[in-house]
Every structure is written in structure tokens, then in C-alpha cells.
């Protein structure tokens, strides 16, 4: 904002007072609050002065000036309310996160068509969970909102977010209007993908395949987060990460055996939680690699036919909420991924 009164070289005590005032968030209606920016504090002070002079003197021109400025203030509040109400449901734009990883988000969505709002504005979007604060910045312009932000969750899980806080100081930067949008949504935080091989120590893999074996790549697939950069086909890559492709290695036979992964969710007594998370990270990594080849996944007792998109999504959600189990995985055959290492 380009007219912060701090630019006026005000004395520190006055700036401190302004900063104290802008911390006041006054309730406007249920789930709505209003606060002032520094220019807003000055505007309100000027308005109070005008009304004091008008009431003191009965000067109708001062009444007129006061009425115009008050309506200007009300118009800013009304526009901000309309703006926040016209924003679409943003939870659909929130991607699945990976625990401990930063996910950069850039998403565009139209504002609600029934709203007559076409103003340029910045909207801050925040939500909280388990002590973590997630924040996005929305740039509204030309009936579109563009969400930008970097999201990072420390813990894996399927988090139910009850409310999302939207706030903006648009359209003229005098007041910060915030509302709590009560639209519960789920935020899926998957384990961080862990590329893996059959021979990796501390991990038990049964079956005849080695996913990352062979020195000739036979196939290309789209790049997915977590892929080793060494596998990226750099000669086909360009500046757009969505166009990157990754080389796939291994024989045709091995590829056929990739179609089933069974994950044993039992956790040995001596294994720590990080090992379990590593296991899930490997499953996730496998899912990312295999999703275009329609494999099947057995995660503990749950079976997912990943051919279907809905099953794939359910598999991801199951991965996010996976907890150690006490029974071996269902089914048989395929590639078994386990921490039990022969103890089952």
C-alpha cells in the first residue's frame, strides 16, 4: 500500500498508537470483523473531527462533508463485504500436500458470476490446524481470483478444517474486513515421497521385480514431485515443469509385475514412527510413478483398483490417514512392501 502514514515521519509514540489501534478488530456481524489500517485510523480521526465540528457548529456544509465521507467509508466496507462474498469456494483449489514439503500453489478461479464485483483487490486467505497456519494470497482482477501461496504441513493426515478466514483491505486500503467462512473441508497431507529400490536396507520387498533396475529406459512418463532429478529427460525438458518427462527403466516382464503393490502396515515393536512414515512415503512414490499404468494397491486391508480415478483418490486419502495395523495385508502376489522383514 502506497500511502502508509508511517511515510509522514510521525513521532514514534504516534506510530505506536496507530499500530495499537490497528490491532483492534471490532465485530461487525457474526463471523465478520473490521479493523483499521494506518490510513484508516487517520481517516477515522479526520471523520470524527468533521462530525465534532459539524455537531458543534450546526454548519450544514460540514454535515454534508461528513455525510459524504461517512458514505465513502460505508461504500468501502460494503464493497469489501461483496468482494469476500463473491469469492468462490476455495477448498477445491487446495492441492494435496506432502508432509514437511513446501507446495507452491498458483490457481485461478472465476469469482461468483452473480456478484457485480469487478474490483482489483488482494485477499488474504488463512486457516489453522494443529498450531500450523496456512496462508494464501488471492489477487482479484477482471472477475478472476488468482491464488498464490506456499503451503507446508509438518504432519501427514487428513485434516478436517472447519473454517477459513478471508480478509481484505480493498478497495481503498482504509479498513481490513475479515470473515470466517464456515465451509468445512478436508486437507489431505500425504507422506513425503521416498524413491526406493527393492534392495534398500531395512525394507522387505518380495517378488521378482526391481523397479529401478536396468540401464535402458523403455518409456517416458510425466514428471511427478518426488521423482529423482537424475531420471528427468533433460533434453525434452523446457522451462515449464508440467512438460517434464521422466525415463522409466526395466524390462517388459518387470513392468507387468508392477501392477500390484501390497503394503504391510504392521509396525515392528522396535521400529520408530519415522520408519512407518518412510514406508508410506515409498508407497506414495510408487503411486506417483505407476498411476498412468493402472496398477492395483493393497494398503493393509484395503484394496484399491487404481484404474478408477475415484479409487486413486481414495487410495491417496487412505495413505494420508494410514495407521499401523496388526494384521498382514490382504490378498497375495504382487510386490509386497513391509517393515516386518520376514518376521510375519
Amino acid at each position, binding site marked *: 500500500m502506497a500511502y502508509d502514514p508511517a*511515510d509522514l515521519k510521525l513521532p514514534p509514540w504516534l506510530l505506536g498508537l496507530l499500530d495499537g489501534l490497528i490491532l483492534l478488530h471490532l465485530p461487525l456481524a457474526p463471523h465478520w470483523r473490521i479493523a483499521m489500517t494506518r490510513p484508516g485510523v487517520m481517516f477515522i480521526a479526520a471523520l470524527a473531527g*468533521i462530525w465534532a465540528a459539524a455537531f*458543534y*457548529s450546526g454548519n450544514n*456544509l460540514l454535515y*454534508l462533508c461528513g455525510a459524504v465521507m461517512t*458514505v*465513502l467509508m*460505508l461504500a468501502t466496507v460494503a464493497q469489501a463485504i461483496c468482494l469476500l462474498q463473491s469469492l468462490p469456494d476455495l477448498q477445491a483449489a487446495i492441492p494435496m500436500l506432502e508432509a514437511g514439503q513446501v507446495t507452491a500453489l498458483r490457481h485461478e478461479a472465476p469469482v461468483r458470476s452473480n456478484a457485480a464485483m469487478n474490483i482489483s483487490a488482494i485477499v488474504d486467505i488463512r486457516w489453522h490446524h494443529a498450531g500450523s497456519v496456512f496462508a494464501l494470497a488471492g489477487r482479484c482482477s477482471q472477475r478472476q481470483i488468482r491464488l498464490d501461496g506456499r503451503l507446508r504441513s509438518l504432519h501427514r493426515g487428513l485434516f478436517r478444517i472447519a473454517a477459513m478466514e478471508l480478509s481484505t483491505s*480493498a478497495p481503498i486500503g482504509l479498513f481490513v474486513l475479515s470473515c470466517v467462512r464456515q465451509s468445512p473441508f478436508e486437507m489431505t497431507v500425504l507422506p513425503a515421497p521416498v524413491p526406493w529400490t527393492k534392495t534398500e536396507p531395512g525394507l522387505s520387498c518380495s517378488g521378482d521385480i526391481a523397479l529401478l533396475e536396468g540401464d535402458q529406459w523403455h518409456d517416458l512418463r510425466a514428471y511427478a514431485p518426488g521423482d529423482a532429478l537424475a531420471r528427468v529427460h533433460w533434453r525434452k525438458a523446457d522451462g515449464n515443469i508440467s512438460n517434464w518427462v521422466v525415463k522409466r527403466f526395466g524390462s517388459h516382464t518387470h513392468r507387468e509385475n508392477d501392477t500390484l503393490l501390497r503394503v504391510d502396515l504392521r509396525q515392528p515393536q522396535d521400529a520408530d514412527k519415522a520408519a512407518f512414515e518412510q514406508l508410506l512415503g515409498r508407497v506414495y512414490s510408487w503411486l506417483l510413478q505407476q498411476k498412468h499404468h493402472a496398477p492395483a494397491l493393497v494398503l493393509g486391508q484395503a484394496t484399491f483398483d487404481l484404474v478408477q480415478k475415484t479409487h486413486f483418490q481414495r487410495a491417496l486419502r487412505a495413505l494420508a490417514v494410514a495407521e499401523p495395523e496388526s494384521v498382514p495385508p490382504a490378498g497375495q502376489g504382487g510386490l509386497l512392501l513391509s517393515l516386518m522383514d520376514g518376521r510375519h
Partner: protein
Amino acid sequence: MAQADALLRAERLTLAVLLCGVAALALSDFVSPFYWSLSVVAALLRLWLGPKFHLSEMQASFIGWAGFIWVGLELVMGRELVVAFTDFLLILALAVVVEAATPRNHLHRMLVGLFLLLGAAVLTDSVLFVLPLTAMLWFFWRAAACLYGLNWPGGDLAATGVAQDLRWMPAVAVLAALLFVGLPRFEFHSLLQAQQPRMQTSGFSDRVQLGDFARQLDEQVVMRVESTEPGESPTAFRQRISGRYWRGVALSVFTGTGWQRAKARNVHRFPARSDVELAQAGGAGVAVYREASDHPYIHLPDGAVSMLHIPEAVRVDDAGAITFNVAPSRRLKLMMQLLKKEKLPAGRPDQFMRPPLPREFDTSAIPTGLLNWVRDTSATAKNKRQALVHLRNILKSWDYDLHVPVDSTHPIESFLNNKRGHCELFATVLALAARELGFAARIVNGYYSTDWNEVGGFLLIRKKHAHSWVEVWLDGRWWRMDPTPPSRWLVPESRFMGFDAVWESAKMTWYRYVLDFEDSDRGDLMGAIWQFLMANSLWLFFMIGIAAVMGLLWRRYHRYMIALSWHRRSRACWPLLDRWLQVQGICRKKCQPLRGIEHPAGVSEKHWRAFVNAWEAQAYGGTDVWRRRDLKRHLRALLEGC
């Protein structure tokens, strides 16, 4: 480049905010044109030459400090405080205009512009004030929105469209009007009341110096009068109010070459907000809007029986003159009750008016020529009263001439020789003749004959209506006698009568509904609006119905035209689109919407979704309907991934 454009836009908008403040203050007659023209010229140079025409902050602050010192000197030299203050504000505005464009400078401009506007609210009451106020509202909003959009992470925000903001402005104006009307009025002190410079009196005067007529009788309005009787039509009000003499001051002492006031023996004082009752009678109400003048007299029309809720303290002397303690420096609204015209006496039914004093019989200073003329002219009269009437009739038959040369050492003889002159000469001769005949007499200065504003339905009293007449003590009361020939009132009309009527009506509306709006007016306004709605409800209902039907028809027509256009052009586009889809390996079934098919390979899902949205938007009028070449362009863009 975009940021440079945004900064330039912010520069212009904040400059506009400041200029609105300067324009508002320039409306005040207290302000010297030299000072406000400095800011305006500097602003024009800044707009012309761009931000390169600037001084550093330090240099600009020197201008501000120099202005402060200069204003201090002005005060020492005796300049009025209010004038010096406005000078300082305008010098400050100059400094801010030429200061380098920085965020601080933008804030300076908006703050100074706002202060100038508020200063103008106290220093002017012109109807034109509404123009800078409205412009300020607009530019303040746009400038603040522009400044809000600067310097965000990720780049400046695009400017909100003018159409979007304009859509809000009528609602803002209506809401401001509602707030203005609805808020309660208090008046603890009149210090910050809107002021105007006291108008220099040129027609009316409380002294008469006989000789060439030196004063100017121009078109400037001194009073506006409107009815306060509910339901009174303009025609009825015009009939009621016109033809009344507006009495100002009675001059009893003749000096030989002029008239002066006699010192009052009894003075009745009335505090502000009290009622002044002149006679025990009921009457119909009028509101008189009195311009700020350099004299303290209140002019009362014939038949005035009371003044209600006077805005400032007044005193009423025994000669019937009502004066403020100090000439007010603002326009005042005076509420009066007047007798109906058919009940009008020839004088004022004033309980404070005293019987004549000896000086009103004084004939010592009457020149010999006048004595001879009275003796010769009244020789045939049966009695003195008849002689007085005869003399008045003779005087009325002479010529009215404002520009006839008058010998200032012997003005009365000169007038008797010329048999032409201005109203003071006519009144002087009749008053002295009455004294010579043994009646107590004096002359009265005030206004007579008025202009009627057809547009607004109110009365205008201008400087050119200033007049003198005579009061003679007959039958125990003061009677008015006017010896001035009727040709006095054959004044040429101004050239722009139509424009003047509209302009005066606008000013009257401004005074009535803005400057002098009071709590009591709220109910009247609501009542007037309600009456208007009731009286025109049928028409309003009809008009609203017509507008609604027209709107619906237009909407239907618009949709039909869109559908027609879409149908025509899409017939040519669908085969092309289907062929393109087949090339991409997708076979669309007949009547299958694009939204229902898989996105083609090689096209990103995001771009395909945007394409489908744009395609469907055609059918709803969200965008122009594509031609084949438009579709080809979009398909090419799809494949190129943009």
C-alpha cells in the same frame, strides 16, 4: 513500465484531489485569487511537464515555512486571521503540488486537499461548493484505490474500471443525502458556521446625503423570500407577498443637505432564539433569506407582526428599526409572520413605534425655496391634509431620473427647478412639506418592488429595489406616503432572465435544503416527498410499470438476438470443431456438449477447460459469438498451449 504508468496515474489523481480542495476554497470571497492561482498554475505545469517538474522535499518544505512566516507578517500588518489562514493553506498547497512524487507526497496531497475542502465548508456557502465536493469524492476514491494497488508482492494491481466505480456513485450520493437529512442538528456555537463576506451595501443606507445619486442600484440580491405556509401555491404566495414595502430605517433629523437617524430613547433587546412580537395579530409565515451585509438592519415588510426564533440577538428601537447587535457575517434565515394583504394598514402595526418627537416637526432647516413652493401649491387646498395629498400627487406627476445633476449645496432648490430626480429627493421634499404644513414627518429607507422567480416560486429583492418614502403622523399613527413617480419601477430587465431565474432557483434550493436545513425541515421534507408521491402515485406506478416492461422486453430481445447469432454462426463452427476433435482422436456425438468429452491429448486440461468455458460463454452472451476464423485462432492457441 506498468508500474511507471500506475505511479503517473496516482500522481494525477492525488493532484486532482488537491485541486478539488483548492477549487473549493477559491469559491470563498475571503481568498485572494493570487494565492489559489499559484497552486493551479503549478498543478497545470506539473500535469504538462510531468513529475520531472518538481522540487525536492527539502525545497518544498522551505516554501511551506516561507508561507508560514509570510502569513505571520500578514497578521502583524493587520490582515484578518481567517484570510491569513486561507493564504497559508494555499501556500502549503503550492508546496505540496511541486513536491517530488513520493508516497509521502501522495499522502500530503490527499490530506491537504481534504483540509482545504473543510476550510471551504466554513469560508464559503456558495452553491458551487457541491462541484468540488463531488469531484473530491470521486478523485479521493480513485486515488486511494490507485495507491492501494501499488507495491504489492507480485506486482501492482490492475486499476479497477471506471464503469465499476461509477456504478456505485449514485448509491453513494443517495446515501449521503439520506445521512445528511437524517442526522440530528445541534448548534452549540456558531463559530464554524459557513460564512460569507459581508456584502457592501450600495442601494440601501441609513444616511441620506442629497445630491447626485452616487450609489449603485445593481442586480445583486439582498433578500430572498419564500412561503412557509404548507400547501400555499406559488400564485397565492406571489399575490400575498408582492407590493409590500420593506422598511429598514426611519431618518428623522434633516440637516439641510441630508437626513440622519435620531437617537432612540427606548430600545427593546431580544436574545437569540427568542420571538419578536410586533403586534397582537395572527399571520401567514414567510422565510426571508438575508444576505450578509455590512449593515445590521432587518428589513420588515408591511404587515409584519412577528419574527420567530431569531437566529441572533436583535434590538428594536422606538422608530421601528430592527437591527442586529453586529452585522452578521453569514446568510441568515428569518422566519416572519405577515398579515394578509387585505388586512394591511398603510403603516406598520408596531407596538414599539413611538409618537413623533419634536425633531420630526422641525422646520428650521427647510430651505426658502421649498417653503415658497409649498405655500404656492397648497394655497387652494381646503385643509392641510388635502394640501399634503395634493403635494404628493404633484410630486408623483414629475419625472423620475436617477442621473439628473443635482446641486449638492442647494439640492432641494435644484430638484424643484428640475422637477425630476431620484426617490430620496421626492421623499425629502414631501417630508419637509408635511412638516411645513404642521405634520410630523420623516423619511424611511428600505426596499420596494421586487422580482418574482417563476422557476422556484419565490421573491427576490435586489439592490436596485432600494427606495425612500415618507412616514407622516396622522390620526395617532404613522402613515406611509410615497411621492415617487411610478416611472421609478420601469427598470429594464436583465439580459439573461431565463438563466438568472434558473440560477437563482438553484441557489435558493441550496440555501433552503442544504445551508439552512434544520431538524424541523426533516418532517416537512418527508411530508413534501410523501405528498409528491401520493399526488403522482398513479403516474409513478405507470412509469415504473412501463420501465419494467421495457426492461423485460429488452432482455428478452437481447437474449433472442444472442441465441439467433449463436445459432447462425455455430452452425458454421461446429463442423470445423468436430473435424479438429477427430484429428485429435475424439469423436463427439451429435448434440454432445464439449464439457462432456475428454480433453484432447496434447492439450493441457487447464487450457481445454478455459476453451470450453469461452465456447459456452458465447451462448449466454458472455462474449462475442465467434466466426470461423476466431475458432481457428482459438484452436491454434490450444495446440500451442497458450
